[in-house]
């Protein structure tokens, strides 16, 4: 059929073979053009609207672990060895799934173009897909945009279909028997970190792709040719989540969703930060390692991780080195990375029980937006004084960076409003932010200082969160 086939299970009950000879053909294109799955819509081709949402399933012991992802920025080889559900998979024998029924009968669609994506997200929640357990409907669909309804009927349809199990045995059996390509023309999908290290040493110019939530746009928007691609999404030994009394080690391939609970156990603000990164589809694809490796000046996670004293382990062949996370970011677009070297894991020390930690992200929209700035504070107050302070910001410089002047103004000083004022003022010496479409330099500096003031007010027992107010009603 093709000299570079990939294989996946479609609709839960059919193994299919498709052309995998173009490593950057999107899964959306493959589904629409090759398989006629035109219920899967392209709304933006950049992972921000969710109209292209599909469910991806992988074997997890005896069962199948499902997750909603954006097919528009997923590359076709990333389907290899997986199970795929599209909106066309949901109705059985012409009978709509209860989620679809609730959307249709409850006036959850108007123009209908976003609807298949919502149906998939809500269906995912109804079967307990990744990131949906104990999660409000609004969070599950934060990565799906609707311009018509105002969301009320869609939220209701979600409420009417609470999580329940699903029988995946047939899909699991098919997945077990599925042939794996693991490589194709112009791409590799190694299964171990050792294999990756060897491959990358041999192909140091190759492009490593984990979740493709960033690199996907290089293809769909910038129309870049990625050259040789190494997909690392299936490398089990990059997916370690090791929690201990001392801290948390996350393999570079751990996706946001997988890391969320462990991070929230380190500190609730970390969990909340993860909740607000992209939509669920993005968090179900994007990885902690990828987020660090791509060197974004905003950096969804890095400011918080830097404030907490995280360290990065890099690997080149069999050699490893560990550096403080802040040392990774050298200057705008430049990281401390050697040829053939990749991010293997990140270590986050567990904060002391008495640490005062606040992480705050400011953006035009709360959900699924990129920070104008993100501030993270890790303070230790002892005997009325600031015994230690680590402060880091994203969006305030060309890289996520610590605030040495602010830290100095805090450290050793009485924990008081006057100290907070002095430290807030010191931020102007730490950063010379730029003005861009997300915010002006003036706003960034003023708001950064105010985040410290807000921390102080909150520590005095004041209510400071508009989000909490909204939840209280």
């Amino acid at each position, binding site marked *: 059929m093709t000299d570079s086939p990939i294989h996946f299970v479609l609709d839960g009950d059919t193994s299919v073979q498709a052309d995998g000879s173009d490593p950057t053909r999107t899964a959306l294109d493959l589904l629409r053009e090759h398989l006629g799955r035109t219920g899967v819509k392209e709304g933006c081709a950049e992972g921000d609207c969710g109209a292209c949402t599909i469910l991806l399933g992988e074997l997890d012991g005896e069962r199948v672990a499902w997750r909603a992802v954006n097919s528009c920025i997923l590359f076709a080889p990333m389907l290899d060895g997986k199970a795929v559900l599209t*909106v066309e998979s949901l109705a059985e024998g012409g009978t709509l799934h209860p989620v679809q029924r609730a959307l249709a009968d409850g006036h959850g669609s108007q123009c209908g173009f976003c609807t298949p994506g919502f149906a998939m997200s809500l269906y995912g929640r109804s079967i307990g897909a990744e990131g949906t357990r104990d999660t409000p409907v*609004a969070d599950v669909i934060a990565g799906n945009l609707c311009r018509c309804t105002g969301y009320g009927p869609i939220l209701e349809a979600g409420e009417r279909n609470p999580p329940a199990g699903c029988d995946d045995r047939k899909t699991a059996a098919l997945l077990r028997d599925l042939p794996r390509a693991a490589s194709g023309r112009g791409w590799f999908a190694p299964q171990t970190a050792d294999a990756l290290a060897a491959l990358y040493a041999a192909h140091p110019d190759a492009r490593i792709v984990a979740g493709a939530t960033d690199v996907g746009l290089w293809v769909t928007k910038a129309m870049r040719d990625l050259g040789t691609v190494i997909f690392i999404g299936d490398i089990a030994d990059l997916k370690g989540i090791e929690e201990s009394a001392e801290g948390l080690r996350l393999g570079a391939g751990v996706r946001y969703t997988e890391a969320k609970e462990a991070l929230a156990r380190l500190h609730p603000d970390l969990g909340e930060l993860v909740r607000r990164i992209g939509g669920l589809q993005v968090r179900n694809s994007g990885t902690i390692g990828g987020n660090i490796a791509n060197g974004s000046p905003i950096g969804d996670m890095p400011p918080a991780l830097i404030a907490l004293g995280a360290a990065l382990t890099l690997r080149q062949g069999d050699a490893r080195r560990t550096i403080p996370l802040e040392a990774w970011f050298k200057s705008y677009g430049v990281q401390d990375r050697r040829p053939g070297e990749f991010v293997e894991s990140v270590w986050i020390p567990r904060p002391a029980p008495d640490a005062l930690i606040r992480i705050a992200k400011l953006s035009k929209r709360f959900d699924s937006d990129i920070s104008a700035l993100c501030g993270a504070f890790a303070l230790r107050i002892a005997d009325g004084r600031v015994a230690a302070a680590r402060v880091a910001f994203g969006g305030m410089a060309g890289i996520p960076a610590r605030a040495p002047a602010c830290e100095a103004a805090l450290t050793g000083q009485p924990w008081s409003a006057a100290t907070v004022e002095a430290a807030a003022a010191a931020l102007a010496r730490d950063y010379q932010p730029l003005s861009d479409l997300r915010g002006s330099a003036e706003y960034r500096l003023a708001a950064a200082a105010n985040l410290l003031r807000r921390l102080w007010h909150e520590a005095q027992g004041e209510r400071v969160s508009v989000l909490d107010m909204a939840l209280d009603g």
Partner: protein
Amino acid sequence: MADAAPSPPDAVHAPLRHDSAEGHVAGTAVYIDDFPEPPRTVHLAFGLAAEGHARLVKLDLSKVRASRHVWGVFTAADIPGVNDVSPVAGDDKLFAENEILYPGQPLFVVAAIDRESARRAARLALVEAEPLPALVTIAQARAAESVIEPAQRMARGDADAALAAAPHRLQGSIAVGGQEHFYLEGQVALAIPGENGQIHVLSSTQHPSEVQHLIAKVLGLSHADVTVEVRRMGGAFGGKETQAAAIAVACALVAHRYKVPAKLRLDRDDDMVLTGKRHDFEIGYDVGFDGEGRIAGIRLDLASRCGATADLSPAINDRAMFHSDNCYFLPAVEIVSHRLRTHTVSNTAFRGFGGPQGMMGIERVIDAVAAHLGRDPLAVRQANLYGPGRNVTPYHMTVEDNVAPELIAELAANAGYAARREAVAAFNADHSVLKKGLGLTPVKFGISFTTTHLNQAGALLHLYSDGSIHLNHGGTEMGQGLMIKVAQVVADVFAVPVEQVRVSATRTDKVPNTSATAASAGADLNGMAAFNAAETLRGRLAGFAAERFGVATDAVRFTRDGVIAGEERLPLSQLCRLAHFARVSLSATGFYATPKIHYDRATHRGRPFLYFAYGAAISEVVIDTLTGEHRVLAVDILHDVGRSLNPAIDLGQIEGGFVQGMGWLTTEELVFDDRGRLLTHAPSTYKIPTASDRPRRMTIGLWERGRNAEPTIHRSKAVGEPPLMLAISAFSALTQAVAATAPGKGLPSLDAPATPERILAAIAELRAQNG
């Protein structure tokens, strides 16, 4: 009369779901990109000007032509007819010639065997352009006196004298940002060549007739050579009224030349860059009022960024003037409207069509007056409402259907406005970082195209001999539920279940010379046209039955139990069969032209609207005074849809309209650079509301006493646009919350959209003022 017949339980006025609801949720509802592509379809991509205003020196397309899989490239020189895709003024070129007017303007279109090849090739053009000075902002265009048409003046009474005599007087201004439509389905068209140079085009457009006419104009064909079809759009909101034309015309151009099908689906970023948006406005006011806050005289100065060409800007800015009064009587008023030409993408229709911006002006005035006097803004609003003896608009139309006072009073009572205002004040006294605000604003929105001749519609109805009904009309479906509403109207005439009525794609060869589905008038116009067609057929069938069964025509009744003619009772299907055998035509057209309306644009006087739609909303918000972050906590809405054709559809329009309006005024910010390039050209940077932005509590009521004073279809009222403006209550509430950070210092100069940055800046500015 349309409202005379009793309605069967499940036809008109029933909360039926959207006719395509099951197709939507199953993914089987077909949009243009979903149609199986005909063999040999070529795919197109526009080549866009990267530079802003510039002289186009040289366009070297050799690399584009040589690119892999490319069939050909088309520029202005390849147009057989006229290089014009404009709705009215003749100034929108399909491809730029000599001068580039704005960044993103199409220079050429490339055709290739697949979409990716076309997109890649389109980037290979070598464009030599000599930059020219770019007017980007309203202020720049005003200073340069760059306009698309002369300023318009609308006035009644002597504003200057009233201002001079007023006990209190305030001046101020507000800037209101634009808005990207962000329909989920981007612009798309597919053109299929036919015989003898004819062409059939599937276009995601609100205005098939205009697309048809423009294709004919560009290709040098007659209208009859071109058929445009649209079954449904994946959202439009005004963004596919004129903006769909260039896409469809480009397809037609290629299909016509190569005799192969041609398809163009814009990439989202390209779509956001090269199609127009809601106009941003700067509104200045000078208002005189008494101690109660009652306005005596007012001058309003409206300035809008129209972009590079006229598009629909004259009518949009007229509508801004028409809504500068909102629900308030302005005894002496002068409104001057400046329509500014800039070197940015040409702004266009967007739900509300200028009305929302006009309303933002007067609602700011009322809030400022209330703050100045230290009065409850609601009391000031109520003191200024139209009423007996105070019922003539600035355009000299008498308001005959004013339900605003009753509706506002009912909403304020039911939602506990007074108690909540006290609770908000108490909260603010107790909190330093967080501040709450409460706002109640009303809406009065004029219904009819203000260009009078557009207020017409046609329908085509077939009865088949099995009694099934094929319905076609000139209105297009963009998600607003037009098709189900009109089907309900038709089902009601024959007393059959709505499932017996098949709605069909809108096509220019079925109903000709249609107006755009716009101005909220889709159901008013097409519902009445379809009603008239159905009445014609019913009358014909009744006459036939009377003759056949020997009874008087008025003894023939269409009921849910069949057609009754004297002693005879037979199903509609049987009557249709009998009529067919008796050689009675079972097909009819219907037509409707809105009565009573007239307007003299030279003097800005007349009755541009048949009636007004009303509503009111209360929003409660909280802001973080340290970061500017905010949430809309709770919303109460009471809206008048007359006697609703379909309450479920109408509620959906109200909720969706509110949230869309809330996005416009809060999170949605268009940022242009100093060359007029749009920086927020993707959903990653342009933020429409998500599910969590929906206020946790939204209580939406349809006004039970609602009944259109005019004989519209079943006494219903238009609902598409008016609810968007209910969101002004959220903006007003945010303004109040900011004001609470510095009590006694008046109203902050908060501009829209109220991003966290603008909130924080408004707080800082207010606190710095001398109070």
